[in-house]
């Protein structure tokens, strides 16, 4: 290789110089052998000869491309040449790697550590050698590490004095050693890198002094480690784990506070920023190999004991309460390295630490509960220090992390809820306990109370998300989930302050702190919405508070810049009032002194119809309309819309002074309607009595209401006391209101009331426009109109969103995983247990499940063990031993012929496992049926589903237990359908027909129906399942019939989605032919195609 290196500087320069002066026509010759070509292409200082060689080569290549002449001969020559110049691996030309040189290199490297003038150049030489020719020799040099890596560990730690960026002449031994090592990493292939990294102490030497390295070196180290180690997917997780242990991560973390007196500040900052990015990458990217895939809020299953406990939890809610306590000592996690590292971070004192930790939590939610459980020494006692604020900020960011979908593990999610304690710790981190939060909320400090309020809001919102996850799809009717949801809410309520503390905190906030008060009112509202049991217990009277907010909104002397927050506060308080049964909406009080008494309802109406409002106040509108409908003031069809339209237009038409005469009248009418509705209902009836309409039409009347009647009735009483101007405004409002109602629906009753009003007004010679003559201008009313429409549309959209079922949702609703993983340990474990434990701990079931194993020897072992277990049970003093013995023996005898050829029919396994539960409980309605089945025959037929006939066609053992038996049957049947063989039994014996017929029972409860759909879904997962169901059992038409027949939109979407799935998974060509293309018409009708 010596030759080639000399090409570089002089050769290239010479070439350029001569190129300018030489204009000879290049000559060339025919190439006949590879050796000739090698000679021609050998480096030559003489330009002419060099060009001659190149030209000859070009000619050869042209020959090959054009295809003229003998192409294969030319290719042969080229191949021969390439063979000749291929770098040789026997190292003969790599003079550096020859023994003699190696020895002297090793000697140089191991020189006394003061002799950096010897060590450094040697390291530089090695580095050059490694990077030479794209790293062609890197492997060889690393192979010879007995010499080339001599004293590398020591050299990696020698001196840094005089280090200077860019001036490698003065670089320290460490700098040179580091760069040599990094070059090795860079130029080696994955296997070489693995070998290099396995030299554990080298890696440690590399990072040991990183904090005192110059910035450029730190950056180079971090870059190389990222691109050549972490991002190399061929380096195993195990090796990465060894290198990036807590110690290494801590060294990188130390770079956050990197200082260097000789370097520019920007460089220093770059290092700390780079270190942060590096750790973010290591700790949050699964591809880096350090973050381990975990199961979210489901803790890692440590050993078999744990799975047994889990199985127990499935059966009884009480078991899981005990189990929850077991996490008080620690939550088992997959990411133990990150857990250890997390404990070393100081999120309260550094924002970057806090960011890193919350990013880790987000990437591995399993660590949240684990972290707070392991690090309980740091309390959240309120103090006005930066540390407290930092901790609060970190806790807040942690709480903002959304709950992972399916709580982090789809499979276990389908089996049951996560442990309450872990979920709770994710919603409300452990440091936030009731005592501490109450102290934070104390009126002594607005700051701590503000922070605590925000956190509680976050916690409640997260709780509501968690509850939602507990109640979606099939979980709504699943007792385990409802129980878990109740437990969660109870535990949450024990961890947070009482409502009275929240109220006290809200009251103590100075009224000018608009934002703080808004947040506190939001918190109060969330208490009412999410944990009403706590909120209502406090007997909180909200009216004085919202009156005071109203007052400040209407008080012209106060600062209105933050009315946006105040309006939000008002909305919250009004919504709370909507929840309080004792709220007096219509009793008049003095809200603003000097303006006369006014009911809260009317005060809020004024606010809503005021034209200067920029905020939409949807919530306020909704609550007021609800109150109005509830008090029968207006019809549910129109709600307050026409009334608000008329008010808005009136306010525009009339001066505030004139309106001041209209408001008290309306207030009076509204409160009369609300306080004595029966009286006005009678009057209303009298208007309708003349009308020849049926009751149904009256109920649906969109325009006629109590308020209208009250206005007509009250009008004469104020005629005398009101001046002409006031009456004109009143008449204008009335005509607007009636026109708005009239526009909604023409009604004779309305006309009758209106003519009565016309009469009354005429008696005082006040003019009023004819009914429907007033134009309800769209532009004027658009604001309120659109808003209400928006509200309604919003609701509908939500509904639609809920009802469309995509594949994921369908899977979530109906897919039950085929089976849990095989637990072969049970083959040995059961021997040590007593018979009672065998029965209670589910070991028998685990053993039976092994009969379905793919491996013949496991099946055989299982069979032998089942027989042994049967014998052991029979020998014991266990009371129900005979039945268990019989069941196991029959299972073994029935399975024996199948064990050698493949998995035992799923029906045997499923029946035995579900029968165990019945045998344990003599009060079970199926107890007699199972016992008589067991005594009927010693062997079960593989062509039949054990006991199925007795349940589906026999009489129920007790009259009212039919559905209980069906529920057991459907669960068992689902487990009995796993393989194509099972499918064939279901098909041949027409079980599908019977199951679908069962599903056609209109009185079947939702959960049983869901079980049937799960069986259908399961069948679609098996080969040819969908095709069989469609062509043999008319599945698509059955589903379509069910879809049309059901009233619940969610369910009908579910049927639709299931149709889609069946179509997608079947043999479409065959189904098309079978149906004579009818299937497409059917699917087209339900918009699936």
């Amino acid at each position, binding site marked *: 290789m010596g030759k080639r290196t000399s090409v570089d500087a002089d050769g290239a320069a010479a070439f350029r110089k001569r190129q300018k002066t030489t204009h000879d026509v290049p000559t060339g010759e025919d190439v006949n052998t590879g050796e000739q070509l090698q000679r021609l292409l050998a480096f030559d200082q003489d330009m002419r000869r060099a060009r001659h060689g190149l030209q000859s080569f070009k000619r050869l290549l042209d020959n090959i491309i054009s295809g003229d002449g003998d192409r294969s001969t030319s290719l042969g020559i080229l191949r021969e040449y390439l063979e000749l110049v291929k770098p040789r691996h026997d190292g003969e030309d790599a003079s550096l790697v020859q023994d003699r040189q190696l020895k002297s290199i090793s000697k140089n490297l191991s020189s006394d550590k003061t002799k950096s003038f010897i060590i450094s150049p040697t390291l530089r030489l090695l580095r050059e050698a490694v990077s030479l020719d794209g790293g062609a020799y890197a492997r060889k040099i690393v192979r010879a590490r007995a010499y080339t890596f001599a004293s590398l560990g020591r050299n990696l730690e020698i001196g840094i004095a005089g280090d200077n960026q860019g001036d490698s002449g003065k670089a320290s031994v460490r700098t040179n050693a580091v760069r040599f090592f990094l070059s090795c990493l860079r130029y080696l292939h994955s296997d070489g890198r693995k070998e290099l990294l396995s030299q554990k102490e080298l890696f440690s030497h590399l990072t040991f002094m990183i904090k005192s390295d110059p910035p450029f070196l730190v950056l180079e180290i971090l870059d190389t480690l990222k691109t050549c180690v972490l991002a190399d997917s061929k380096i195993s997780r195990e090796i990465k784990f060894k290198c990036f242990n807590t110690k290494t991560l801590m060294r990188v973390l130390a770079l956050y506070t990197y200082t260097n007196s000789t370097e520019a500040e920007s460089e220093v900052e770059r290092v700390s920023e780079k270190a942060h990015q590096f750790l973010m990458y290591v700790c949050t990217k699964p591809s880096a190999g350090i973050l381990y895939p975990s199961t979210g809020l489901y803790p890692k299953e440590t050993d078999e004991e744990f799975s047994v406990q889990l199985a127990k939890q499935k059966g009884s809610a009480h078991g899981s309460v005990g189990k929850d306590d077991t996490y008080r000592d620690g939550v088992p996690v997959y990411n133990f390295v990150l857990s250890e590292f997390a404990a070393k971070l100081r999120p309260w004192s550094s924002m970057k630490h806090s960011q890193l930790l919350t990013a880790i939590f987000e990437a591995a939610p399993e660590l949240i509960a684990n972290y707070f459980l392991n690090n309980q020494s740091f309390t959240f006692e309120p103090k*006005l220090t930066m540390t407290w604020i930092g901790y609060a900020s970190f806790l*807040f960011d942690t709480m903002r992390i959304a709950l992972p979908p399916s709580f982090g593990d789809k499979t276990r999610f389908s089996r049951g809820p996560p442990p309450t304690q872990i979920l709770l710790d994710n919603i409300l981190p452990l440091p936030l306990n009731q005592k501490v939060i109450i102290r934070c909320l104390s009126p002594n400090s607005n*700051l701590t109370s*503000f922070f605590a309020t925000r956190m509680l809001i976050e916690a409640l919102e997260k709780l509501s998300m968690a509850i939602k996850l507990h109640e979606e799809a099939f979980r709504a009717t699943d007792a385990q989930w409802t129980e878990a949801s109740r437990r969660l809410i109870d535990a949450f309520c024990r961890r947070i302050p009482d409502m009275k503390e929240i109220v006290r905190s809200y009251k103590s906030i100075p009224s*000018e702190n608009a934002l703080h008060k808004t947040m506190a009112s939001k918190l109060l509202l969330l208490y009412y919405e999410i944990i009403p049991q706590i909120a209502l217990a406090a007997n909180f009277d909200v009216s004085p508070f919202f009156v005071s907010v109203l007052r400040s909104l209407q008080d012209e002397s106060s600062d209105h810049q933050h009315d946006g927050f105040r309006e939000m506060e008002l909305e919250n308080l009004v919504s709370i009032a909507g929840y309080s049964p004792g709220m007096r909406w219509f009793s008049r009080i003095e809200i603003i002194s000097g303006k006369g008494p006014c009911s809260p309802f009317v005060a809020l109406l004024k606010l809503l119809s005021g034209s200067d409002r920029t905020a939409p106040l949807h919530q306020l509108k909704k609550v007021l309309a609800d109150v109005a409908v509830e008090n029968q003031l207006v019809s549910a069809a129109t709600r307050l819309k026409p009334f608000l339209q008329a008010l808005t237009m009136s306010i525009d038409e009339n001066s505030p002074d004139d309106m001041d005469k209209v408001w008290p009248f309306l207030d009076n009418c509204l409160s009369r309607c609300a306080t004595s509705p029966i009286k006005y209902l009678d009057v209303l009836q009298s208007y309708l009595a003349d009308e020849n309409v049926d009751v149904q039409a009256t109920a649906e009347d969109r325009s006629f209401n109590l308020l209208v009647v009250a206005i007509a009735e009250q009008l004469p009483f104020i005629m005398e006391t009101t001046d002409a101007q006031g009456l004109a405004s009143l008449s204008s409002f009335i005509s607007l209101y009636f026109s708005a109602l009239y526009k909604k629906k023409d009604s004779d009753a309305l006309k009758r009331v209106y003519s009565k009003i016309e009469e009354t007004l005429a008696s005082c010679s006040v003019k009023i426009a004819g009914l429907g003559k007033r134009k309800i201008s769209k532009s004027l009313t658009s604001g309120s109109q659109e808003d209400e429409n928006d509200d309604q549309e919003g609701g509908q959209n939500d509904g639609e969103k809920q009802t469309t079922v995509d594949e994921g949702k369908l899977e979530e609703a109906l897919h039950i995983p085929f089976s849990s993983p095989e637990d072969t340990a049970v083959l040995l474990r059961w021997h040590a247990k007593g018979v009672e434990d065998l029965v209670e701990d589910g070991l028998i079931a685990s053993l039976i499940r092994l009969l379905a194993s793919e491996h013949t020897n496991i099946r055989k072992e299982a069979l032998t063990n089942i027989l042994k277990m049967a014998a052991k049970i029979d020998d014991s003093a266990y009371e129900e031993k005979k039945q268990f013995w019989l069941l196991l023996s029959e299972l073994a005898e029935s399975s024996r012929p199948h064990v050698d050829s493949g998995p035992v029919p799923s029906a045997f396994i499923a029946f035995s496992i579900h029968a165990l539960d019945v045998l344990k409980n003599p009060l079970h309605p199926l107890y007699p049926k199972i016992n008589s089945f067991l005594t009927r025959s010693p062997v079960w037929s593989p062509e039949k589903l054990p006991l199925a006939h007795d349940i589906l066609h026999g009489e129920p053992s007790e009259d009212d237990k039919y559905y209980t038996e069906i529920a057991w049957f459907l669960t068992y049947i689902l487990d009995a359908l796993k393989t194509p063989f099972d499918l064939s039994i279901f098909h041949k014996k027409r079980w599908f027909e019977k199951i679908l017929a069962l599903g056609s029972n209109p009185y079947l409860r939702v959960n049983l129906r869901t079980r049937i759909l799960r069986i259908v879904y399961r069948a679609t997962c098996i080969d040819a399942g969908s095709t069989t169901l469609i062509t043999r059992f008319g599945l698509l038409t059955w589903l379509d019939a069910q879809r049309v027949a059901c009233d619940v939109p969610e369910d009908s979407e579910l049927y639709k989605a299931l149709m889609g799935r069946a179509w997608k998974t079947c043999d479409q060509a065959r189904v098309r032919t079978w149906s004579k293309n009818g299937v497409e018409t059917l699917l087209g009708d339900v918009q699936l195609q």
Partner: protein
Amino acid sequence: MPQDSTQSQQAFSALYLQRVTQELSEDLDKVRNADDFKVESVPFLVHALQQGAQQFSASQQGAVLKTSESRQG
């Protein structure tokens, strides 16, 4: 559109921060005088104060901003 929404989010964050700082000014003075308060703490403090702005929905943010603009001064 996304640019608009980021802009209004930033505007709201700024308004929120200003409001929090004003409402908690007394306590913030005490924090500033605490032993553990350093110059480097400022960004962290700002982050801590501002982080609650995310608790307001986009429409709420818009409403507050609108009101604030129309009532300013």
